[in-house]
């Protein structure tokens, strides 16, 4: 059957390139393998030539696939399922890229694209390591290329084809029996991008995170290459800048995700120990552990076995994380994991082909990896660094075990779930990790590798920043105490110890740059990263433990409900439009609401007036209409940023998101001045009709045509209200501005001037005209310490990369001269 109007050409090209990328990756794997195994230089070279061309073809195809997908989406070719499912016409052009990574296919594509580009860099720089390392990367490219296939092999679904047509996706739907299905209303627009992804962080966070994931393949590749080729001594130096790069990018990606969560989700924070978050944190922790053991090996010859293990596990956990988030296995435990796309069998196979050969090779060669039998001195840097790496690794293991509960349930047919307080189940363990890591970060650099001769000096150097940190902690306890009694005094004490440890980490490393390195910043990348890390810990501790709910509900009815009712989340305050409401140190007023030009976002203007009169500001928390056919709205918080705190607010409930049917209508009454009209609770009298009034917000001039009716409402109990509906002629159009007497559930409308030149007033009595919102407001103190610490840590990583690459270079130059 012919379907007029379809644009099939980009899809056909797309299919071609997905197949080409797969075949090219396979050819590159085989050719690089042959080159790495070849003994004769000629043979090596000829295989390498083939491999390079094949790898280049793989990357070129991925670029082409990406470009074609973007072309399809930006041209709104809704006959393609990807465009139809992930975009629509009203979408802001800046979010077109986000459409690509909304689906799993796009995620795999992005990952593979980055991995390919990193491979191209290695091709130019890795020299003798090119063939073995790129064998591994080509194979990884091959596994990712299968994810974009979209075919069935022996009934197993292999990959998701991003160029699938809507009519192929929904073959059973009757609509597609018509050749003109494209003119059907359902095909005129796409489903749109998930409203929560329409955020600038979501344009940048996924590419950075996927670059982080992709880059972990390089240390993995080097480690496997070293085992396979038995070249145990030469790989640890060239791999280090790559490991640093990977840790820096993955860390940035994770924190960008945290920033997105903070800005657009409403759990009131940047981290919730959600499985999806954990899944990206675990590889980072292991990678950072591996980074440190790598440094130990480069300086002392200890810990190569551990380094190999950590680098291999990093990539394995990246793959495993991808399985967790994309297989749908987290469905019941995560709020934002993907729904299963039917690739589970393939994903399990994927993990198997990555994990089994890598672990087999490690076990096989483990004994051959050089290790020093002599014990490390307790006064050596390597001893304490190793312990630190171990702590990081254990922290990662704890996180991954509890995140894997759904997998354990599947495997062993259990039905376990993390207990009552998910966050605390992590926090109570991770606080000890924070303490250990903080102190180790502070003191370890003062030791020298192998042996520290001057032990007295060492103690002094540890003591000075230690006392400063202690004083700072005491100052916090006195001037801005943490009052976090939720989990008892023991946990509070642990928080204080952790605060001390993180401040110690910051000052210890500042002191080390000053005294240990004599202020030489060039080589201080590690210390700078540690300072940033310490600040992150501090920011996390302070902002979480001193987080306050400002919107305690003081007006609601308290129910005799539970013995531990103080823990119940009675943290939402109802604000009735224009009525100032008491909210702790502020008076909060729901001033107005407005719709954006595309009509999908409702902004609520909430004004906060500090009671001491010092400050007054407005926040605009908003509700975004859901896309993809789902009704209702999603929350989008708004924050006011200060240097030392954030005021964070979101709409937890609005009557707009739950519209009740308003069945009552305006009853028209022709009235003359002094005429009266009765309603259920009293009566009203028309006092006057004013031409072009200037009253309150309405300032009309002689150029306008507006009439304002002034009515007085007399309630049975004696109260009176004024009401002023307006009738206006604007550009030849009649506009009504009804007036509402909220207290009487009354709406008055100036309908028209009748033929007898009498004003007609419409009267409506309604059960639910009271516009209101429920608001949640948090105060986050010192959250900027976390963001600033993140930036400093990344700067430290970059400094380290530059330093490590530089210190490698002179040696090469000497070799070239000879």
């Amino acid at each position, binding site marked *: 059957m012919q379907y007029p109007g379809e644009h099939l050409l980009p899809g056909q090209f797309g299919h071609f390139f997905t197949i080409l990328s797969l075949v090219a990756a396979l050819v590159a794997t085989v050719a690089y393998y042959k080159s790495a195994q070849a003994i004769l230089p000629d043979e090596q070279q000829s295989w390498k030539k083939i491999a390079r061309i094949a790898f280049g073809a793989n990357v070129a195809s991925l670029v082409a696939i990406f470009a074609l997908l973007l072309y399809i989406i930006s041209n709104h070719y809704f006959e393609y399922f990807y465009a139809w*499912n992930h975009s629509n016409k009203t979408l802001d052009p800046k979010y077109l890229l986000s459409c690509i990574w*909304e*689906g*799993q296919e796009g995620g795999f594509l992005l990952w593979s694209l980055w991995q390919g580009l990193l491979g191209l860099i290695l091709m130019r720089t890795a020299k003798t390591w090119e063939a073995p390392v790129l064998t591994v990367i080509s194979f990884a490219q091959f596994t990712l290329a299968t994810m974009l296939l979209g075919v069935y092999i022996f009934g197993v679904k292999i990959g998701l084809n991003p160029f699938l047509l809507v009519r192929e*996706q*929904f073959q*059973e739907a009757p609509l597609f029996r018509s050749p003109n299905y494209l003119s059907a209303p359902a095909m005129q627009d796409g*489903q749109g991008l*998930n409203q929560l*992804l329409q955020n600038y962080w979501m344009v940048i966070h996924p590419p950075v995170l996927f670059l982080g994931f992709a880059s972990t393949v390089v240390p993995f590749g080097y480690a496997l290459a070293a085992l396979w080729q038995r070249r145990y001594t030469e790989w640890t130096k060239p791999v280090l800048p790559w490991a640093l790069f990977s840790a820096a990018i993955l860390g940035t990606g994770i924190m960008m995700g945290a920033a997105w969560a903070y800005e657009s*989700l*409403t759990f009131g924070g940047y981290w919730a120990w959600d499985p999806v978050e954990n899944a990206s944190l675990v590889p980072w922790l292991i990678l950072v552990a591996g980074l440190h053991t790598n440094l130990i090996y480069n300086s002392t010859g200890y810990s190569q076995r551990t380094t190999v293990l950590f680098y291999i596990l990093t990539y394995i956990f990246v793959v495993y994380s991808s399985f967790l988030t994309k297989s749908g296995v987290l*469905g*019941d435990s995560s*709020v934002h994991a*993907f*729904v299963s796309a039917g690739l589970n069998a393939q994903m399990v196979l994927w993990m198997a082909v990555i994990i089994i050969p890598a672990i087999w090779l490690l076990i096989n060669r483990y004994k051959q990896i050089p290790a020093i039998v002599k*014990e*490390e001195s*307790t006064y050596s840097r390597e*001893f304490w660094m*190793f*312990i630190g790496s*171990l702590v990081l690794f*254990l922290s990662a*293991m*704890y996180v991954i*075990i509890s995140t894997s509960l759904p997998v354990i349930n599947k495997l062993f047919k259990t*039905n*376990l*779930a993390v*207990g*009552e307080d998910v966050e605390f*189940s992590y926090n109570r*363990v991770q606080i000890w990790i924070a303490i250990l890591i903080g102190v180790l970060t502070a003191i370890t650099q003062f030791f020298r590798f192998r042996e520290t001769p001057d032990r007295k000096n060492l103690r002094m150097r540890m003591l000075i920043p230690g006392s400063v940190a202690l004083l700072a902690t005491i100052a916090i306890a006195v001037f801005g105490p943490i009052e976090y009694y939720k989990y008892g005094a023991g946990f509070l004490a642990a928080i204080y110890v952790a605060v001390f440890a993180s401040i110690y980490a910051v000052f210890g490393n500042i002191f080390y740059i000053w005294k240990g390195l004599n202020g030489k910043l060039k080589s201080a990348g590690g210390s700078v990263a540690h300072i940033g890390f310490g600040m992150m810990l501090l920011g996390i501790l302070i902002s979480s433990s001193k987080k306050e709910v400002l919107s305690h*509900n003081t007006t*609601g*009815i308290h*129910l005799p*409900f*539970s013995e531990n009712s103080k823990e*119940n*989340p*009675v*943290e*939402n305050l*109802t604000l009735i439009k224009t009525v100032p409401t008491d909210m702790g140190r502020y008076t909060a007023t729901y001033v107005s609401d407005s719709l954006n030009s595309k009509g999908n976002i409702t902004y609520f203007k909430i004004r906060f007036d500090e009671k001491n009169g010092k400050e007054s500001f407005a926040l605009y928390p908003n509700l975004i209409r859901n896309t*993809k*056919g*789902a*009704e*209702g*709205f*999603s929350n989008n918080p708004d924050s006011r940023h200060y240097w030392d705190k954030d005021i964070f607010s979101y709409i*937890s*409930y609005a009557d707009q*998101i*739950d519209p009740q049917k308003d069945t009552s209508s305006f009853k028209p009454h022709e009235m003359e001045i002094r005429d009266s009209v009765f309603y259920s609770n009293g009566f009203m009298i028309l006092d006057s009709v004013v031409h072009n009034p200037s009253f309150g917000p309405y300032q009309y001039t002689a150029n306008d045509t507006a009439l304002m009716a002034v009515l007085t409402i007399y309630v049975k109990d004696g109260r009176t209200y004024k009401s002023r509906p307006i009738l206006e002629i604007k550009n030849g159009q009649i506009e009504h501005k009804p007036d509402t007497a909220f207290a009487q559930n009354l709406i008055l409308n100036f309908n028209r001037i009748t033929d007898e030149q009498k004003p007609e007033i419409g009267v409506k009595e309604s059960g639910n005209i009271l516009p*209101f919102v*429920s608001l949640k407001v948090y105060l986050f103190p010192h959250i900027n310490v976390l963001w600033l610490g993140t930036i400093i840590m990344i700067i430290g990583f970059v400094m380290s990369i530059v330093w490590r690459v530089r210190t490698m270079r002179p040696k090469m130059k000497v070799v070239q001269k000879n």
Partner: protein
Amino acid sequence: MKKLHIVILLFIAAGIAVLLSFMSDLTTYDTVASARAKEGKFVHLIAKLDKNSPIEYDAVKNPNYFAFTAIDTLGNSTKVVYLNTKPTDIEKSERLVLKGAMRGDMFECKEILMKCPSKYKDEAGTDTKSFSANL
């Protein structure tokens, strides 16, 4: 024995201790009947909203009181009280994971995870892949 080995052993011991305490805190996914049998114990109740029973929510009176009836796959039902705002679109949810405990004849819920159907699911038989943020 090396000092590092001792440290590693200590860490392993600590790890086991932590894991044991973690295990003892684990809860289970339950039905109404089994949750009722463990009254007062924190469970994950898997059920759905009983659309034939009324939903109690009046944000003007108290935005932090939401009550409804949940019914599980075995047909048992219980009243659920959730001291928070009513989750948007709960009427359209097809499955609820209710975290909380039975107290008396009602389920005191601390957190609700909702699974909402996709509009196109029935039509197509395949779910559209997307994030679902139900917080």
